[in-house]
């Protein structure tokens, strides 16, 4: 009985003060080199080719976790976020952490895991109305980049990269782990220029099905994330 009272008492204290949560913002900054991406407006220049503009940039971040000395110390519950360059509010995620948790790394997935992919209709950021679900073949699009470049000899010079696929051997979800220098707020840079410059846009400008190409490009897309110092 006394123990129960003590637990109850402690839990009240916990709720009140020492175990209070604090909030850490994680911002995803989509850039072209050092400039923030502006959809449609800006024309960017590729070193060897010519001009590039971005019309659509969306991707899923899931399974956000924090690590300390290689061990997970915090995992965000129900962690799925759709980052949409068109919706500024979507680019910052707020983590509510228990106080005094120490961490030196952040880890997350670029994309949606296979279990979620086969679990039927879901709401929120996973609602199939978000433009990130394939209709002709079930599965989430993990990463969507669309734009125009004069080197693309396609209709309206458009390029489309819809990267996804969850089934063996084309599972395209990518795990990303980044070292942190400061921990009160986290800014993650995703440099689109790094992605686009490594693609031969003349010959590869449409990838919209799961497969080898999507897998290679998913790995490339994961490589552009870094901690902004």
């Amino acid at each position, binding site marked *: 009985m006394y123990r129960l009272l003590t637990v109850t008492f402690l839990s009240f204290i916990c709720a009140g003060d020492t175990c209070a949560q604090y909030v850490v913002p994680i911002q995803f900054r989509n850039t072209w080199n050092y400039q923030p991406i502006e959809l449609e407006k800006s024309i960017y220049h590729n070193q060897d080719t010519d001009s590039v503009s971005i019309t659509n940039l969306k991707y899923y971040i899931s399974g956000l976790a924090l690590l300390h000395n290689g061990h997970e110390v915090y995992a965000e519950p129900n962690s799925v976020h759709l980052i949409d360059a068109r919706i500024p509010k979507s680019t910052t995620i707020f983590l509510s952490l228990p106080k005094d948790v120490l961490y030196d790394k952040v880890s997350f997935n670029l994309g949606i895991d296979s279990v979620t*992919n*086969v*679990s*039927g*209709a*879901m*709401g929120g950021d996973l*609602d*199939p*109305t978000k*433009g990130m*679900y394939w*209709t*002709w*073949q*079930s*599965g989430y699009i993990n990463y969507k980049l669309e734009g125009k470049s004069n080197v693309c000899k396609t209709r309206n010079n458009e390029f489309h990269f819809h990267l996804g696929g969850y*089934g063996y051997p*084309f599972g395209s979800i990518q795990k990303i782990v980044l070292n942190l220098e400061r921990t009160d707020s986290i800014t993650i840079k995703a440099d689109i220029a790094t992605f686009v410059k490594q693609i031969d846009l003349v010959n590869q400008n449409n990838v919209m099905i799961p*497969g080898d190409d999507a897998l290679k490009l998913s790995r490339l897309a994961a490589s552009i994330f870094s901690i902004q110092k």
Partner: protein
Amino acid sequence: MKKYLLLVFGVWIVIVALKGDDETKFRIPKNWPNPVYDFNKNRLNKDKILLGRALFYDPVLSADSTISCTSCHLQYTAFTHVDHTLSHGINGKIGTRNAPALTNMAWGKLFMWDGAINHLDMQPLAPISHPDEMGSSIDSVLLRLRRSSIYPSLFYRAFKDSAVTGEHFLKAISQFMLTIVSSNAKYDQVMRNEKGIAFTSQEANGYRLFRAHCASCHKEPLFTTNDFRNNGLSVDTTLNDFGRIKITHNPKDSLCFKVPSLRNIEFSYPYMHDGRFATLQQVINHYTTGIQHSATLSPLLDKPILLTADEKVDLVAFMLTLTDKEFLFNRAYSFPKEIFMSAPKE
């Protein structure tokens, strides 16, 4: 004290009211396997089923409001489109595959002839978006539902939320599709040893032949394993459809298509993924003398199936015992007049 009791009673009533939610139980027919569908994620309820049924019958799902689910999946013909080899869509467009008969979907694992769809909830997205079927998109369908005079209140009744979301839309259609169960054909009544019901000697011989030659793929009681098989059809060069390989990119899946259920087969003609056979006799002749051998042919068809003319007739007689009249004419599956007739015109 009395007041206190009253309060407790009041709280109990509220809890019961909230919990009750008019849940409808999904009945698994006797001796059937457990369904594949996870009902815990989408608990059946009569208002949700009714909403799904309304959506199933509503051409608002197509770009020009001419095509509904039932255009290709008509109840009286086992929820398929008889006499049409390939599916029809808006503006007279013709698809590349035969609309499949819909039945016992709670036991389905993958949907479509090539298994492109991994969950019943996600199935409607394909015909809604396909340019040769409904030619619309989920976003424009939802926009039209939000503006309609009947749907916001139907969504509210079903989900206690009038917001018309993709999740609720898809879950409601699933609810209706899940209730489409065929388990009361003569075959079922014989299996349940119902009084006064027995196979004729012809049907009994057909059943024996069926078990010997067909049942490994068309496994009872669902009459399918839901697997993908190459059943030895020649490639139709006007379609060049290689089936499941399109989804898996695996050469072993070339020319493999989903094994369809044989329930209500009497009414679901024409047969095969491209509707190439008009009659059951043609289907049987294919299996006895028409098999095309190729690297991915189902090993079960490697050796020829030999049947006499009489045996073929008996086999067909058995297949006709899979006709379930109660299913074909069940009012619970038909056009929900009460919704559309009472609604004011838009």
